[in-house]
Structures are given as structure tokens and as C-alpha cells.
């Protein structure tokens, strides 16, 4: 990296831009919300007024080294509803997370290509059409989008003026071109993206994903390289600056934990015709991430049967840096999975990854891929306590498990209905058909499906395997003993605990006895969702991810029949149980590729923790790359690897000041270890202890 990039990187690390941040008093935020209420505006106008408020308050900042600008100075974004208003909304509606549009993927490509003036003209045309048909709410919506565009242009103009006044004619010239008009160069396209992405965050929308950056940006790069406007090095420098820009304001973005911000970038995969889509830009992105070692953007690699092995190597080199990415997803499994749920072939081939791992469609998807989670461990817990003693064989017990699973799913889904989200006029501009139909994205899009995570799959399979083996096969343990032991957390029966924990088969050892149970559980999950429809007419998508539920779901259950004691966490995502010592990574990938993962198409990666010493040289990186490719070839849907060193994590917990840059993968995202809550830190440490 050159000096300019080093300075920009250092600025971020030293948080130099924080000095420009404005401190806005809570009273001012509350007063704004109150004023919206008093004006009795429609919801969509409230959303638009909020964006106007933020963008008007913004102060342009141009650091001397910057070629890609737009930095947040307004840190807090006001609510559009008072607490009272929220409460009454919650009485009538299901509210997902913050009640805002989030975790979808914008169609940046089109707007960057044509510019905002052209988009305005489209809105004018749509206005005429909707006035003719008397679509009042549609007209208001379109007007709010126009206003949002004007607010963005206004801030851009203020940036341009500052550029002129500070002798930055280069920036001045560029900001007069974009975002008003379409981007002509790679540099303009990057700056354009930055403005769009910045505005999404400023609108209060979050988990604003990046999508297939290497696909929609490649033509600009290629053109500049062909005309000689850029050479490889200057293009790479711009790309690195662009990557750095994702880390400027990320501490302001809402998420479960610092780092959980959804800035997922997807590289590679197949194109709309099914051909390999890796290109020079894909490779440059991997190299930029490798050099910068920043947690954003988070890299996802789409791979398929024709992916060149070199990309697995580049990916493994990135894994070696301990960033917790890339995360791999397998087109050969994901695309058929999406097709089976009614996605079109073109959309399925264009899938991207949401904030964590869920597969979503840019421009066309208003899916909520993380609306709820099914706790497999809880299902087994209930089945044991209610039915085990009355079952004569394992098959009849499994029937009861299915019964309980359906009950649990019904309970979860009964809470979801009549969903409400704050309107999102600017986000709507970046989604297909919203302008033409004069319909806000919060009201739905082409796809309105809901994803349900599945947590504790391995704990459930291990528990069932232990029951099958000891209660039904060799009949060495009575059902009642299991029920009692679970109820008193094995306190009266340490021998039974030893037996369940150490003598029963565990998932991850390539042992069909237990793996086939997991196969059956996932099959059951898939079947249960097949005919379900959600309140928006969409379907439900079963997944193998856990998100933060791996900690939350533990609170609902006691000890489990695999020897897990009360309070011990479940494993994150699709992984062996936390306290199980497995044979090794080959057995793990064999076990976890047995289920038909096309049916578990909401995603949720197998996580492999490899000790960082395994990445010592080129030769061993090749072996890791081969391991990844093997899981993909065996039919795995998604994989994420961590290069970890337990000693370093323990030290970092003790001396956070010395390890500010230590990055770990938490569930679907990477974050700085020292910024995590202790509970999550301990889980990461525990996970590593047993798997390496």
C-alpha cells in the first residue's frame, strides 16, 4: 500500500475523523420526533423528514488525503415515532427488530449507471401515471423520493463547494458529475456508491449490504484500464480507499454487537447464464482486504464447480489473516435451493449474502431472512420430558419429536403477522419497481419470504443419538433416568453424565449413527415449512444459522441428553456441539455435508476453527484451500473458517488495550474481539479450545 493509503488507514485507526462529529442532545432528537407527531404527517413523510433533517444537519468533511468523500458527522438519527406511538404500533403489528427496512440488498448498479437526474425523470413519469389513476398514497410516496434525491444533491453541492474552496478541483469536478449524472469512470462509480450507501445509513436503514460489487463495478474498471485512465496500481489504490471508507462510520451503525453491521460484499459465483463470473476486480478485492486487514467490507466468496482453485487459495490467504472471512457459499446448492422456493433462475443466479449468511436477491427481495429461530435443542428437551417414558422404540419417539417441532414452529409463527416497517423512500429508489409501482419497499417487493434459523442442530442430533443408543438399542439406561438427570442437571448421576457425554456418538465424526439423525431433523424442518405462507404471501425458508440465538436459546432449556449441562451454550451456526472433541476437519465436513442442504436454503455456515499455525506456509495454505473445496464438492452449502489462537484470545481478554486489532468471527460476522461483551468473548474462546 502506498503512503496515501497508509495515512487514510491510520486516520481510521486513530479515529481522526471523530473530531468532526457533532454532539446532538437527546432533547433535540426527542423534540424532532415530537414535532413529527404534532404535524400529523403520514409515515412516509416522517421518514423523509428524518432524512432531510440528518442530511441538512450534516457538515461536509474533506480530509486532505481523501479522494472518496462523505463522512458522517451527525451521529444520532432521531426516531420518527414517539415511544407511545411505537407501543401502539406494536399492539397491532409484528415489528421486526427496530421496525425499519434492513438486511436487504440494493440495486446500486442501475442508479450509478444512469444518475439521479434520470431517476427523477422516471419519478416524474410515474407521478403522471399515478395521478391519472388517483393513487394518492403513491403520489405522496413518489414526492418523498424526489425530496430525498434533492436532499442528497444538496449535500453533494455543499461538498462540491467545500472542495472548490479548499483547492480540490478534482473533487469539485467529480461531484458536479455524480451523483446527478451516471458515473463514467471507476473513481466516479466508487464515489457514487459511497453517496448512496451513506444515504441509506443516514436514512436509518441498516445492515445495508454491498452485493455483487465485482460484477456491477467491473465495467468501469475495465473501461478505465482500456483507455489508460487508470493502471492496475492506481485502480487498486482507489479500491483500497473505497474499502477504508466502509470503516469510517461503522461504529454508528446499529447491530447486535459492534461489528454486526451487514456490510457484506459478495465476489465471484456464476453470471446470469451460469458461467463463471470471477474477474480481475474479484481478485483485487481479495487482495485489498488481505492488505488492509479491516473488518469491513466483509468478504463472501460464491463458488461453484468451475471456480478456479486460485480463488480458494486467495480466500485461504485471507482466512490466514484471522479476519474470519471470506465466507464461502456454494452456487451448486444455493441456486437450486432458491429455485425450489420460487425464485426465478435469473434472480437465483444473482443471489447475494445478507448481513450474516442468508441468501437474498438484490433489487427484488424484501425478504426478512432472520425473522425467527427454531430451537432444535428445545424441541428435544420438550419431547424427552413429555414423551420419552411412553415410547417403545426410537421411531415412535421421533414421531413425537416431529409433533413437538410442529407445535414449536406454530407457536413461533403465530406471533408473526401483519408486519409493519417504517417507510423507506430512499431505499425504495434503489429497489426494482418501487418507483414504477409507486410503492414503498417497506410494503414488500417481488420476494417477501421469511427465513427461520435453526439452532442447536448438533446438540439435538447428539441428544437423540444418546437416547437411541442407551435407551432403545442397548437398553442400558431407562427413560426415567434421563428425564430425572436432565431435571437436576446430572447432579445426582455423574456416571450417567459421563456416559452421555463421552460414550455416545457425536455429530462431526463422520458417524452415520448420529449424522443420519441430523439428516432427518433437517428434512423434518424443511417439510414443516413447505406449505406455509406468511402474512405477505411469501414462504418460509428453513436455515441452519443461529445468529445470537445460540446464547439466547440456552435460557429456555436445562441440561440436554448429550451431556451438555444447564447453561452451557449451543454451538454457533452449523457446527459440532461446543464441548465435543471431534476426529478432525475431514470428519466434520463429511458429517455436515450429509443433509440435503438445498432444502436448508436460508443458509447458515459450517464453521471450522483451525489453529493459526496451520497457515504457516504456502504449502499448508494450499491444503486449507483444498479442504474448503472438498466441503463444497461434497455438497456443503456454506462454509466459514477461522484461523485462531486461543492463547492470544485469553491474553486479549485480559489486556484489551494491547489487542485492539484482534478480529474474530462471532456468528455471521467478524468483529473486534475486545469490543465484544464478555459472554461472546467466552463463547469464542470455548469454541476454539475444543475444536483445534
Amino acid at each position, binding site marked *: 500500500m502506498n503512503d496515501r493509503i497508509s495515512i487514510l488507514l491510520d486516520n481510521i485507526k486513530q479515529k481522526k475523523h471523530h473530531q468532526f462529529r457533532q454532539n446532538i442532545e437527546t432533547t433535540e432528537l426527542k423534540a424532532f420526533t415530537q414535532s413529527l407527531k404534532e404535524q400529523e404527517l403520514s409515515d412516509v413523510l416522517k421518514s423523509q423528514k428524518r432524512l432531510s433533517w440528518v442530511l441538512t444537519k450534516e457538515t461536509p468533511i474533506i480530509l486532505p488525503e481523501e479522494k472518496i468523500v462523505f463522512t458522517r458527522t451527525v451521529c444520532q438519527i432521531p426516531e420518527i415515532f414517539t415511544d407511545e406511538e411505537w407501543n401502539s404500533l406494536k399492539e397491532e403489528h409484528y415489528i421486526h427488530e427496530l421496525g425499519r427496512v434492513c438486511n436487504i440488498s440494493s440495486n446500486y448498479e442501475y442508479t450509478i449507471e444512469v444518475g439521479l437526474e434520470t431517476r427523477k425523470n422516471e419519478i416524474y413519469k410515474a407521478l403522471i401515471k399515478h395521478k391519472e389513476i388517483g393513487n394518492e398514497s403513491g403520489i405522496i410516496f413518489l414526492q418523498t423520493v424526489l425530496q430525498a434525491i434533492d436532499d442528497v444533491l444538496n449535500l453533494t453541492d455543499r461538498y462540491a463547494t467545500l472542495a472548490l474552496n479548499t483547492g480540490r478541483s478534482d473533487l469539485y469536478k467529480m461531484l458536479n458529475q455524480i451523483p446527478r449524472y451516471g458515473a463514467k469512470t471507476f473513481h466516479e462509480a466508487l464515489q457514487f456508491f459511497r453517496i448512496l450507501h451513506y444515504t441509506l445509513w443516514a436514512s436509518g436503514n441498516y445492515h445495508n449490504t454491498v452485493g455483487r460489487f465485482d460484477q456491477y463495478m467491473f465495467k468501469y474498471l475495465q473501461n478505465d484500464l482500456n483507455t489508460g485512465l487508470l493502471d492496475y496500481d492506481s485502480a487498486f489504490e482507489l479500491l483500497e480507499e473505497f474499502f477504508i471508507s466502509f470503516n469510517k462510520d461503522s461504529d454508528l451503525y446499529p447491530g447486535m454487537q459492534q461489528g454486526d453491521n451487514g456490510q457484506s460484499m459478495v465476489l465471484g459465483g456464476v453470471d446470469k447464464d451460469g458461467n463463471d463470473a470471477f474477474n480481475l476486480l474479484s481478485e483485487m478485492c481479495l487482495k485489498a482486504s488481505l492488505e488492509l486487514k479491516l473488518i469491513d467490507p466483509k468478504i463472501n466468496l460464491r463458488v461453484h464447480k468451475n471456480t478456479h482453485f486460485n480463488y480458494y487459495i486467495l480466500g485461504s490467504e485471507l482466512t490466514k489473516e484471522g479476519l474470519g472471512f471470506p465466507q464461502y457459499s456454494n452456487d451448486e446448492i444455493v441456486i437450486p435451493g432458491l429455485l425450489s422456493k420460487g425464485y426465478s433462475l435469473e434472480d437465483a443466479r444473482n443471489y447475494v449474502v445478507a448481513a450474516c449468511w442468508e441468501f437474498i436477491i438484490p433489487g427484488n427481495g424484501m425478504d426478512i431472512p432472520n425473522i425467527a429461530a427454531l430451537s432444535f435443542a428445545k424441541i428435544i428437551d420438550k419431547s424427552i420430558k413429555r414423551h420419552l417414558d411412553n415410547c417403545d422404540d426410537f421411531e415412535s419417539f421421533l414421531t413425537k419429536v416431529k409433533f413437538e417441532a410442529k407445535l414449536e414452529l406454530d407457536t413461533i409463527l403465530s406471533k408473526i403477522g401483519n408486519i409493519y416497517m417504517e417507510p423507506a423512500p430512499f431505499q425504495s429508489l434503489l429497489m426494482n419497481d418501487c418507483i414504477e409501482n409507486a410503492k414503498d419497499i417497506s410494503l414488500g417487493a417481488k420476494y417477501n419470504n421469511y427465513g427461520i434459523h435453526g439452532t442447536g442442530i448438533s446438540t439435538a442430533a447428539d441428544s437423540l443419538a444418546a437416547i437411541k443408543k442407551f435407551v432403545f438399542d442397548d437398553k442400558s439406561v431407562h427413560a426415567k433416568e434421563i428425564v430425572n438427570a436432565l431435571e437436576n442437571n446430572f447432579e445426582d448421576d455423574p456416571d450417567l453424565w459421563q456416559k452421555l457425554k463421552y460414550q455416545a456418538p457425536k455429530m462431526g465424526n463422520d458417524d452415520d449413527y448420529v449424522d443420519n439423525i441430523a439428516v432427518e431433523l433437517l428434512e423434518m424442518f424443511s417439510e414443516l415449512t413447505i406449505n406455509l405462507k406468511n402474512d405477505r404471501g411469501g414462504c418460509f425458508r428453513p436455515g441452519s444459522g443461529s445468529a445470537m440465538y445460540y446464547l439466547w436459546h440456552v435460557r429456555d432449556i436445562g441440561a440436554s441428553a448429550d451431556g451438555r449441562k444447564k447453561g452451557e451454550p449451543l454451538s454457533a451456526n452449523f457446527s459440532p456441539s461446543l464441548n465435543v472433541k471431534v476426529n478432525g*476437519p475431514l470428519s466434520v465436513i463429511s458429517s455436515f455435508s450429509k443433509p440435503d442442504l438445498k432444502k436448508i436454503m436460508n443458509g447458515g455456515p459450517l464453521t471450522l476453527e483451525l489453529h493459526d499455525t496451520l497457515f504457516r506456509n504456502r504449502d*499448508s495454505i494450499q491444503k486449507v484451500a483444498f479442504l474448503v473445496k*472438498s466441503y463444497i464438492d461434497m455438497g456443503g452449502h456454506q462454509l466459514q473458517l477461522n484461523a485462531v489462537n486461543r492463547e492470544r484470545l485469553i491474553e486479549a481478554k485480559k489486556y484489551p488495550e494491547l489487542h485492539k486489532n484482534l478480529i474474530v468471527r462471532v456468528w455471521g460476522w467478524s468483529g473486534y474481539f475486545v469490543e465484544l461483551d464478555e459472554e461472546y468473548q467466552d463463547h469464542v474462546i470455548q469454541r476454539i479450545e475444543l475444536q483445534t
Partner: protein
Amino acid sequence: MTTKGIVFDIEELGLHDGPGIRKLVFFKGCPLHCTWCHNPEGISFCKEWIITHSGEKRICGKEYEAKELAEKLLKAKEILIDSGGGITITGGEPLAQSAFLFELIRYLKPISIAIETSGYAPKFIFKRLISEVDLILMDLKHTDNIIHKKYTGVHNSLIINNLKLLCQSDVNFILRIPLIPGVNDNKENMESIVQLIKNAKNLQRVEFLPYHQTAGAKYKMVGKKFEPGFDTNQTAKVWLDIFKNNNINVLVL
């Protein structure tokens, strides 16, 4: 004939023990007693109790019939084969269970087999080994017989003779030298090692394994005391030039 063997571990992603992705199988029991040994559970030929630092008590050592072990090792063999890897047999000392070893090799073939050995075995066994495996990772600690005996418990004459035999054969081999500070990391030892191997056309490279502070970590687990007999705080000297000057590739692991 069915022979039983005893194994203390199987690893699935040996990255530094031969080409490609390899499974590693550790034979239990070793005639040498190197004071720096980092696998103390691999020394005894018997099963023994292990108590881990987290309090888990388990038996270390599992008996297998050769066929049964081969089946276990050949699970997921496609990955091993496709990656250009295979099975690496290490220990302990695999040659100390030679009947079991050769029966296992018979069941494993045609997959690529590497073996890591101290070379401490009768000549006829070592000769047979050379004819049956694809790669030999051979250890050499010291060329001086007396020092060798002091730190490993055995004389080195069998080892040196077998190494000479290996150098004249056509099976690929890697010579591994543990670098023990103040014991064998001196110029004289390195020079005499070079003399032994410099004409071997089948030598792929020499690998140095510098002594690591964590070597003593497992002794408590098996109820033994770590008494290395040298200053463990010192850093071992690495002699690259002596080897490079004789056109021998060297790698520090």
C-alpha cells in the same frame, strides 16, 4: 494372520507431514526416550490414563486390528487422494510394531503412504520399509553415539546404518532434525550430518524442528515429570548455510 496394534491418536489434517491432505496415525510406544519428547503419551506401549487440565479422565491408547484401522483411515479417502495426499504413519515409533505396520500398509495401499521414523530398527525391517512406502520422514538427533545415548536412551549405530541404507535407495525421504539447544545444535554435528546425506539423490530436503517451550506441556497429563536435562530457556541455533552450501534444501518448521 491378524496382529493387533496400539495407537494413541489419529489426526485428520496433518499439514507438515508429507504432501497433500494427510491423515496422521500415531503408533503408541517408542524404544527411544528422548528427554525433549513432546508426545510423552507415545512412549509407553501400554494403555494409560490421561487426566486433562479440564479434569477429563480418559484412557490413552486404543488397540486395533490392521484392517479395522485401515478402514478408519480410509474414510474420506477421496479428499486425501484428490489433494495429492494420503496417510502418514508416525508415533511413537511405527517400526517398533513392525508386523502390525506392514499388515496395515497392505490394507492401505494403493493410497500414498508416508512414514515418520527414528530409524531405530533392525536392518531387515528397515529394508522392507524402504520397499513399501512412498516417503520416509527420518529423524536424526545426533551423530555422536555417546551423546545420542545420553539424551535418547539408545545408541545411534542402527539409526546411522539405516540412514546410509536409505541414502542409497530410491525412496524419497526428508531428514528431520530436532534442534535442541546446547545438545545437538552445534556446527560439528551439523557438518557430520551433511557428510552422511550429501550424496543422497533421493533426499528431498532437511527439515529443522527447533525445540519449543511447549514440549513439556503434556507430561503432567500422563503423570510424568518433564526433565529435559538442558536449558529450555535457550533458543536453538539454526545452521542453514552448512546445508545450503552442499546444495541441500532446508526448511525450518
